[in-house]
C-alpha cells in the first residue's frame, strides 16, 4: 500500500467525509475509472478476523485495580506509606485499596469488580478477552490520548481509524468510513485524536456531534427549504458546468460539481442513520436509553451498532470522567454505571445479530492508574494517579480469544510484568485482526514509509482466538 498520491486522481475529489449514496451516475463514474477511489472497499492483506471495529475510549484513564484486575494485597496496604516514585506527584504517598469487591464471572471466570452488573452476565463475560500487559508512555492526558489513538504522542499523525479506512476502504459509500462520537465536550487534544494526519482528508474521522447539527452546516438555513436548495444547486451546476467547459484542462471541476450532489444527498442520509425510532423499545431499553445515567452512552453504542451494520469500518466513542485522582469510589462507580449496561448490550446485540464474530469491540483508556496516591488539599484523598506502566483493556468479538486473561500486573497493580507490550503492539494486533499488516500498511510521507506503529511492532498472539 505504498501509494504516493502526488497527483490525486479525479476520483479522490469525489469522496469526502461522506461519499455518494450509490447514485447511478456515480456508479457509472466509478466504473469509468481505472483506479480505485479512496473509500472503495479494498481487499484485506490477509484473511481478516474482523470487518469492523468499535472502540470505546474511556478518557481520563480507568483504573485497572478497580475494574478488571483485582489487587487484594492493596487492601492490606491501605493508607500505609508508599515509596513509589512512579508518576509525577511528589510528597507523602500512600497506598489506596480498592473500594470495590471483586468476583469471578461467567464460565471463564473473568474477574470484575462488583460495580459491573451487566458485563458480569455470563453471556457477555465469556466473550471477553482482558489484556493486562499494555504499557503506555506518556503521563499526560493529551499526549497519551494521541499515542493510543494515533501511535504518536505528537498529535499530528493519522488516527488508527484513519489507517483502517485507508487500508480497507468503506463498505458503504453512503456514509463516512470512520465515525467518532464524543460527549458534549471533545476530549483533550480534540480532533487531533481522529485526524487523518498526513493521509488524505478522506480518511479523517467524522465526528457526529452529540448536539445540534450532527455534521456542521448539514441543513440549509431555516428560511430556505429543500426545494429552494435544489433550485440553487441546479443553477450552480449550470454555472459550474459552463465554467468547466471553458476549462477542459482543469480536471477537478467535474468532481466538484458531483460533490455538491453528494452533499445534497448527505442531508438525507446522515439524519436517517441517526434516527433510532426504528429500533424497538426493547432494544432501546437494553442499551439503557431509558435511564438518564446510561442514556448518552447507550444511544451512542446503539448508533455504533447501526453504523457498523450499515458498513462503517471504524467507530469510536469517547466517554470521559475516569480521571479519579480523588473520590475514586464515587467517580468510578458513576463512570462504570454509565457504560456497564450499554457496553454489555452492545456485545449481546452484536452477538444476537451474528455480527460479533466479525466486529471487534475494544474498551480502553489512555493509561492506567497507580496503586497509591498523594495527599490533596492537605488530606488523605482516596484516588489514584496516572500510571503508564499498567492498565487494562477489554476486547470482544472480531477474532479475539474468548474468556481469557492475557498478561498480568504485579501484586499491587503498579506495573505490568507478564506478556508486557507497548501500545504499538496493541495497534499492530488490532490491524492484524482487521486483515491488515502494519508493516505493509504504509504511506510515504516526509521521506519515509510511515506506519501506525511508527517503526513496526508485533502481534500479541495470545489474544488471537
Amino acid at each position: 500500500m505504498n501509494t504516493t498520491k502526488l497527483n490525486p486522481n479525479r476520483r479522490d475529489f469525489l469522496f469526502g467525509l461522506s461519499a455518494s449514496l450509490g447514485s447511478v451516475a456515480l456508479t457509472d463514474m466509478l466504473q469509468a475509472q481505472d483506479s480505485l477511489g479512496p473509500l472503495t472497499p479494498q481487499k484485506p492483506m490477509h484473511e481478516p478476523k474482523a470487518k469492523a471495529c468499535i472502540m470505546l475510549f474511556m478518557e481520563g484513564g480507568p483504573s485497572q485495580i478497580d475494574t478488571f484486575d483485582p489487587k487484594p494485597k492493596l487492601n492490606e496496604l491501605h493508607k500505609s506509606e508508599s515509596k513509589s516514585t512512579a508518576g509525577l506527584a511528589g510528597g507523602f504517598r500512600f497506598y489506596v485499596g480498592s473500594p470495590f469487591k471483586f468476583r469471578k464471572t461467567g464460565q471463564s471466570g473473568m474477574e470484575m469488580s462488583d460495580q459491573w452488573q451487566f458485563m458480569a452476565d455470563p453471556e457477555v463475560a465469556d466473550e471477553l478477552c482482558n489484556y493486562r500487559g499494555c504499557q503506555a508512555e506518556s503521563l499526560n492526558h493529551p499526549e497519551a490520548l494521541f499515542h493510543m489513538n494515533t501511535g504518536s504522542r505528537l498529535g499530528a499523525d493519522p488516527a488508527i481509524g484513519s489507517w483502517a479506512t485507508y487500508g480497507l476502504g468503506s463498505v458503504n459509500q453512503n456514509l463516512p468510513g470512520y465515525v467518532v462520537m464524543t460527549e458534549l465536550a471533545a476530549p483533550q487534544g480534540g480532533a487531533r485524536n481522529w485526524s487523518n494526519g498526513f493521509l488524505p482528508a478522506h480518511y479523517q474521522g467524522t465526528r457526529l456531534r452529540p448536539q445540534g447539527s450532527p455534521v456542521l452546516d448539514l441543513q440549509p438555513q431555516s428560511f430556505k427549504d429543500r426545494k429552494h436548495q435544489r433550485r440553487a444547486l441546479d443553477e450552480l451546476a449550470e454555472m459550474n458546468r459552463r465554467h468547466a467547459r471553458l476549462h477542459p484542462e482543469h480536471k477537478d471541476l467535474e468532481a466538484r460539481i458531483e460533490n455538491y450532489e453528494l452533499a445534497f444527498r448527505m442531508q438525507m442520509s446522515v439524519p436517517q442513520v441517526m434516527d433510532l425510532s426504528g429500533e424497538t423499545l426493547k432494544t432501546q431499553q437494553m442499551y439503557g436509553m431509558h435511564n438518564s445515567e446510561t442514556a448518552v452512552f447507550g444511544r451512542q453504542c446503539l448508533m455504533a451498532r447501526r453504523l457498523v451494520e450499515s458498513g462503517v469500518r471504524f467507530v469510536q466513542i469517547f466517554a470521559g470522567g475516569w480521571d479519579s485522582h480523588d473520590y475514586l469510589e464515587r467517580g468510578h462507580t458513576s463512570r462504570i454505571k454509565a457504560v456497564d449496561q450499554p457496553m454489555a448490550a452492545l456485545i449481546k446485540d452484536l452477538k444476537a445479530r451474528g455480527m460479533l464474530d466479525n466486529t471487534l469491540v475494544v474498551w480502553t483508556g489512555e493509561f492506567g492508574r497507580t496503586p497509591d496516591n498523594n495527599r490533596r488539599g492537605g488530606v488523605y484523598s482516596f484516588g489514584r494517579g496516572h500510571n503508564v506502566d499498567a492498565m487494562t483493556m477489554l476486547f470482544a468479538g472480531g477474532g479475539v480469544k474468548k474468556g481469557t486473561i492475557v498478561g498480568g500486573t504485579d501484586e499491587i497493580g503498579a506495573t505490568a510484568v507478564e506478556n508486557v507490550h507497548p501500545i504499538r503492539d496493541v495497534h499492530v494486533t488490532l490491524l492484524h485482526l482487521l486483515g491488515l499488516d502494519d508493516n505493509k500498511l504504509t504511506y510515504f510521507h516526509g521521506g519515509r514509509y510511515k506506519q501506525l506503529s511508527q517503526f513496526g511492532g508485533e502481534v500479541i498472539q495470545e489474544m488471537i482466538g
Partner: protein
Amino acid sequence: MLHCNKVIFVVVPLCFLGMTPVFAEPNPGEELFAIKVLPLLKQKCFQCHGSGEDLKGGYDLTTRMGLLKGGESGEVSVIPGKPMESLLVSALKWEGYEMPPKENDRLSEQQINWVEKWIQAGAPWPDAEIIAAYRKKAWGERVTKEGVLVDTSGGLDDEWTYRRYQAEDIWAFQPVVKYEVPDRSHPVDYFVQAKLHDHDFELAPIGDPKVLLRRAYYDLTGLPPTPFETSQFVNAWRENRQQAWNSLIDKLLASPHYGERWGQHWLDVARYADSGGYSNDYERSNAWRYRDYVIRAFNEDKPYNRFVLEQLAGDELADNSVRERVPQANSVTTARRSGSYNQQEAEWLVATSFLRMGPFDNAMVLAPQARQIYLDDVVNSVGQTFLSTTMRCVKCHDHKFDPIPTRDYYRFYAAFATTQMAERPVAFLPQENQINFESEQAHVAVMLKNAETQRNIVYHKQETAAQAWFAERELEYKDEGARQKLPDDKKPPRHVGLNATDKGRYKVYKQDVWIWPRRQERFQPMIQGVYNGMDDPFRYPGSRKLRIIEKQDSQWQPASFILTGGALEAQGDSVEPGVLSGLGLPVRSDLSNPYLLPNSINGRRLALAKWITDDQNALTTRSIVNRIWQYHFGQAIARNPNNFGGKGAKPTHPRLLDYLTADFVENGWRIKRVHKLIMTSATYMQSGQRSDLEKLQQADPNNELLGVFQPRRLTAEEIRDSLLAVTGELNPEMGGLPIRPEINMEVALQPRMIQFSLAPAYQPSPEPEMRNRRTIYAYRVRGQADPFLELFNQPNPNDSCELRDSLTVSPQALTLLNSDMMTDRSIAFAQRLIDERETLEPQIKRAFWLAYGRDPVKSEMNRLKKYVNEMQEYHRQVTPGSVKYPTEITRSLVEELSGEPFNYLEKLPVFENYNADAKASEVAAETRALADLCLLLFNSSEFMYVY
C-alpha cells in the same frame, strides 16, 4: 568562509591506508560479501535473525552455516551457486516469504542483485580478518562506481561512516553552481525551455491578461483585483504588455498586502499559533508580535539572511548591542530585567519568538523530559525550516539515507543547550499596531471579574460550613489555605459543605480565575522569547509565566551527550556544539575541528545562525528559493521543501534552482528580486491551456516539464479574505492583537476540555470592523480551529506545513451553501450591490465584475435574472426568524475526579453589546433573493480557483 567539500578532513582516522592486505589476490565473491552483502545482512536481517535471544523462525544469519541451513521450516535457505533456487532470494524479493517484513526496510533491486551474485559466486564467507582487509581497501577510495564517500563527524559505526552515496541523493549537499545563461535569455525560461525541448515541447502561449492579472493578485497579495484595477490593467496591457506587467508586479510587491500573503506562507512553515497546545493550551499571549514581525520583514524585503539570523539569535544580537551601547558590567542583565532596549534590539528580540512556535506544554512532564521535548522540537524545526533537512530521525540513530550522523544531531542540539524559554519584557515598537488595546483589555477584565464573583460564591459556601465545623468542635477557624497543614482530624473534610455541583463549579471558576489574568499578558510589552543561560532543574517551567533567571553561574557549562536511541538516560559520547558536517561547510579554519561552534554560554547559537546564513550554505539558500518557487507554481523545483534529503523528491530543474539561488545570494538575499525574476518569465505567464495539452499531459502527467500553468484552489484564508473584499466589508487595518471573527457558533460554544476544566467559550470581536480583517490576524488556538478554515485545509499548527492540501470533500459544499458565515457574506454582498446599482441587470453585472472581473454573457444574464425573480417570489412567501446571540450559556461537564455531572453558567458579555452582521430577517425579500445569487457566485468554481 572556505568551502571544504574537496578537502579531506581526517575526522575519522584513516589509519589503515598503506597497510598490506592479508589477501594475496582479491576474490570478487569474497569482496562483494565483505563490502556489500555482510553490511546489508547486518543492517536488514540481524535484528531478528541474529544470534540474540529473540531469534525469529529459528533462522540464524550470522554464520555461513546458519545462513545456508535455513530456519525451523526445515527448508534449505541458500544453495551456493544457485541463487534462483535459494529460498533467501525469493524471500528478499517478497515472493513467498516477505523479508524484511517492513516496507521501509525492503531491499532495492540492486541490493537483491548483490545477494544473488554472491550466492552465484558460491556464497563465500571469509574470516573476519579478511573481511576487515577488504573493507579497509574499499574505504580508501573516495569515488567508486558504488557511489561517493561523504566526510562527516563520523557515525556510530564504521559501516555508516564509510557508506557510499549516489550523487543524485546528496545533490542538496553539493555547492551551488551558477550555470551560464545566454545573453537576452530569461534565465527561468532558458532552463525550463531546455527541458521542454528535450521532450519536443514548447512553452504554452502567454495567458489572457485578465487571467494573468488575477493570478498575480492572488499570488502576491491573496486578494482579487477590483473592477477598476482590472480595467486599468487591461488597458495598459493593450498599450504595452511588458510595461503593464512589470509595473503591475512592482505595484503588488509594494502593496502591504504582499507581506500578509507571504507572511502566511512563512507562518505555515514556522507553525504559528496564539496558544501552546496540549492539555492546557495556554495562551501564547504575545505571539502576535512575531506574526507582525514576519509580515513587516516581507514587506520591507528584509534580506533573508538577516531574517533567519534574527529569528535564530536575535536575543544574542540584542545582548551584544547592549554590551556595546552600555559599557557597564551588568548591562545585559539590567536590560533583560527592565526590557530597556532600543528599537533595533527590540525588533531582534521579537524575532526570537520563532524559537517558541512549536506546541509545548510541560505540565505533568518532568523537567528534564520537558527540556528534551523542547530542544528536540527546536532542532527539528530549525532543520526543516531553514535547511530543508529532516532531523527528527537522527535523534535516535545515524541518518538512514543522508550524510547526517547522530553525532551532528547532538552537536546541533548542544548549540541550543543554553537556550532558555522566557517571557521577556520588550517595549512595543512604534510600528506595532496597538489598536483596540483598551476595549480588549476591558473585555478580559470583565471576564476575570465574573469568574472571581462566581468563585467567591462557592468559596463562601464552603467557608461558612468550615466555620461551623470548627465552631462545633470549639476550634479556631482557619481558612482554606491556612488549614492545609493541620492534621486530618483537626480540620473539616475537603470541600466541606459543597455538593457535587458546587465542587465542579468551584474547580471551573478557580481555573477561570487563573486563565483570565494570563490573557491580560497580551497587552503587556512582553514577548515569548528566549535567552542564554543555565538550566534550572528545580524550576517548574510549565505553567506559570517563564521568567529569566537572573542569578547566573558564569562557570556553568551544559553537559552534552549523544543520547543513544534518543533516551535521556542513555548518555553516549560527549559532544560539543556544532553544525552539520556532511555539508562540508566549516565554521572555522581550525582543520582539526572545523565543524564545532564556540561552547561558551553565549555565542554558540549566534555562530550556528551565522553558519546557517553563510553565503556558501547550499541548504539554506536553495531551501528558501525552492519555497518561493513553490508558492508561485504550486509545486516546488524539489518537491519536498522540508526535505532535501535522499528520500525527498529530486529537483526537476536542478540548474534552474541553482541559478536562482546564486542570483539570490549575489544580490543580497532579497526575496522580492526572486519574485520579479520568476514572474517576468514566460514560464510564469503561460496560459493554463494549450492546443496539444493532451499530448503534453500524457508525456508529463505531473507537470514536471512546466509546460502549462496549473490552476489552484484558493487557500482557506484567501477564500475568507476574498469574500470580505468582494462584499466590501474587508477592513485593511494591519497587525496588532489577534482578531476574533465569527466562527460557527456551535463550535464556538461547544465545550472544550482543558486540564482540570473547560476552556472559556470563544466570543467573537463585537464590531464588524474588528472581525472583518484579514484572516492572518485571526486568533489561532491550537485546540480550537475555525472549522471553516480547517475545512479548506488550513494546516494543523503542530506540524510544519511545507505545502497545503486542497482536496475537495463534501462538507466543503455544505459549509459553502449553508453556513451562517456564507449567508452573512451573501447578504452583505447583496446590500452592497443594491447600494451601488438600482436595478437587477446592473446589479448582476456589478456582481460579476466584483467576483470574477468580467461581464456576464447574455445567457448567464438571462438565467440569473430569471433565478433572482423566482427567488423574490420565494422569499416573499417566507419570513425568516431572527437570530439571537446568547449572552450566557449553561454548560454541563462531568467532574473529572468524582465522575459526577454538573452544570454551570458561563457569561458571554460580548453578546450584550454585539454589532451583528445583517441577518435575513432584517433585510427585504428582494435583498434575500439577490443574496441567493451572491451565494451562487461564492460557490462557483470560477470564484474558487485561480488560473
